[in-house]
């Protein structure tokens, strides 16, 4: 095949895939600007004839509190799980390379267990988790939601960071050992700075996962003032009827923060992934 034709087909495929991804986003954006009647009476992909900000206005007032709640819960959760996950990943890394065969097998076994734990569906743990949080007296409390999320996201952080940490050249860690540095110092001074792109990738991934987590806040929150954004957005599709233009507007507002994070930190996300293949040169 000639290079021109090959490139054309290549780009055509990219355009089609991008379009498939963008159509729902486009629909979500424009329908929030329509009046409720127009949403029901015009096709979903046709832009509004008259722009109205009223839906956004109403929804934003209602979502202000859940947005704030989500930020309060998600940002510390993501930071803590990435940091502790990275520490855990380094711990297992050092165990794997220890001289004791028993310890390195144990480390492999425990790490597999943790990896497996990240695949447990939340729903399966719902009742014991809720009972645990209640017995800690943390139901309907930021700390309770954070605690529950950390249970799931620290292993995720460890799993992702273990990939990024294993890219740091082993000789650097050995040199630091010979220089008399302890593991905490090696972690803080060398591992963390050298796997920073990976750290940011993991952080972004966990922010987005936690932001979209629906079940944990649904179960652990009992008062409307404590609701997180996914639960608040879901409440727009009610049992008795749906106000479509407000639902679309709510969806837009709920996705602004992950979207903004991705736009501003996206290049670090990519850089982290590149570092995986390039021998840690993404620094």
């Amino acid at each position, binding site marked *: 095949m000639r290079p021109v034709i090959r490139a054309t087909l290549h780009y055509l495929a990219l355009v089609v895939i991008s379009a498939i991804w963008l159509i729902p986003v486009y629909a979500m954006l424009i329908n929030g600007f329509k009046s409720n009647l127009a949403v029901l009476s015009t096709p979903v992909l046709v832009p509004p004839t008259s722009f109205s900000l009223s839906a956004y206005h109403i929804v934003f007032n209602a979502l202000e509190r859940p947005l704030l709640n989500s930020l309060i819960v998600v940002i510390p959760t993501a930071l803590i799980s990435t940091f502790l996950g990275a520490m855990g990943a380094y711990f297992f890394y050092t165990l794997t390379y220890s001289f004791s065969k028993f310890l390195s097998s144990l480390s492999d076994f425990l790490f597999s267990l943790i990896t497996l734990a990240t695949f447990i569906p939340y729903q399966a743990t719902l009742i014991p988790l809720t009972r645990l949080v209640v017995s800690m007296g943390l139901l309907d409390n930021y700390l309770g939601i954070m605690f529950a999320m950390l249970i799931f996201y620290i292993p995720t952080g460890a799993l992702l960071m273990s990939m990024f940490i294993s890219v740091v050249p082993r000789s650097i860690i050995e040199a630091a050992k010979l*220089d008399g540095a302890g593991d905490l110092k090696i972690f803080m*001074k*060398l591992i963390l700075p050298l796997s920073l792109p990976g750290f940011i990738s993991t952080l972004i991934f966990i922010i987005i996962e936690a932001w979209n987590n629906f079940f944990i806040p649904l179960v652990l929150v009992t008062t409307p003032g404590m609701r997180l954004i996914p639960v608040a957005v879901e409440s727009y599709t009610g049992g008795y009827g749906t106000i479509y233009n407000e639902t679309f507007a709510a969806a837009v507002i709920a996705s602004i923060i992950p979207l903004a994070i991705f736009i501003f930190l996206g290049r670090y996300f990519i850089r982290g992934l590149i570092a995986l293949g390039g021998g840690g040169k993404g620094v």
Partner: protein
Amino acid sequence: MVKIIAKNISKYFKKRNGYVIALDDVSLTVESGARFGILGPSGAGKTTFMRIIAGLEVPTKGELYFDDKLVASNNKIIVPPEDRKIGMVFQTWALYPNLTAFDNIAFPLTNMKLSKEEIRKRVEEIAKILDIGHVLDHYPRELSGGQQQRVALARALVKNPSLLLLDEPFSNLDARMRDSARALVKDVQEKLGVTLIIVSHDPADIFSIADNVGVLVKGKLVQVGRPEDVYNNPVTIEVANLIGEINELEGKVTKEGVIVGNLKFPLDKSYKSERVIVGIRPEDVKFTKDLINDENWILVGKGVVKVIGYQGGMFRITVTPLEGSEDEEIVTYMDHPLKRKEEVLIYVKKGSVKIFET
């Protein structure tokens, strides 16, 4: 400074189907303050041996002493690497890429609870010796290869180690830099008096730095001695090849000498096996058109010029015996070229022919 004693050290690596023997019963003593070289082809276990000394690897069997203190024995590390007072320069130098040259060199000192001024003083002192004072605020990626190597050396030396380990430290430098780097290492070692062990596959490193050399082949320590002695009296053709260029000829032992095609090499003693390998260093060979009247040079026969090369201001001449296999080649260096296909007389220096039983 410290004396290193290795007693019957073996190292096995577990592989899917059985074990790989990296080191096989290596025993060695390196005197305090000595410069010792370990020479060997890649995969011979050189780096493994050095890592065992450093404490980054544990010997499967055997014991390792620093002076009379046991530091590792039979699959157990007794003194961890950080307590062995070792400075090590890795093959890749392993500089910390996120720290400046200054912080790289200061890193070992920050683990010693020294005051900031004391650290600054010692870093600047060693940087001055190694001539890197002007690049201390640069990051490793902003330094040239030679500077990076000197930063790595400074980092190894700044903590006043008792033992300096160099793992192929010059292989990442270009040829021009190597000689000055070797001289620098030797100078610094002499100044500080630290025990030094260098691992290399390049005999030039060994000759320029080490007083004694141990040759590792397939995990076994096959010869230990002064580099010149190993060069002149290698125990096997492999060792001879490792420590310098040598001509290898397959010959047959007869009463008159060793026969290779039409060439006849003198015998110094009798050999059990009939097939032997004749080894001659290039500098112990002469090709001439006329007879030489010098009893130090022995005529072994006639040959034909096969290849003429030019290298380092000298002509590299390859000659094959007039009769016999074309695969047998003798190489030497001359200050004037010969013609291709020209017939020449082959002389060898008296007492220089090495004969190895196969």
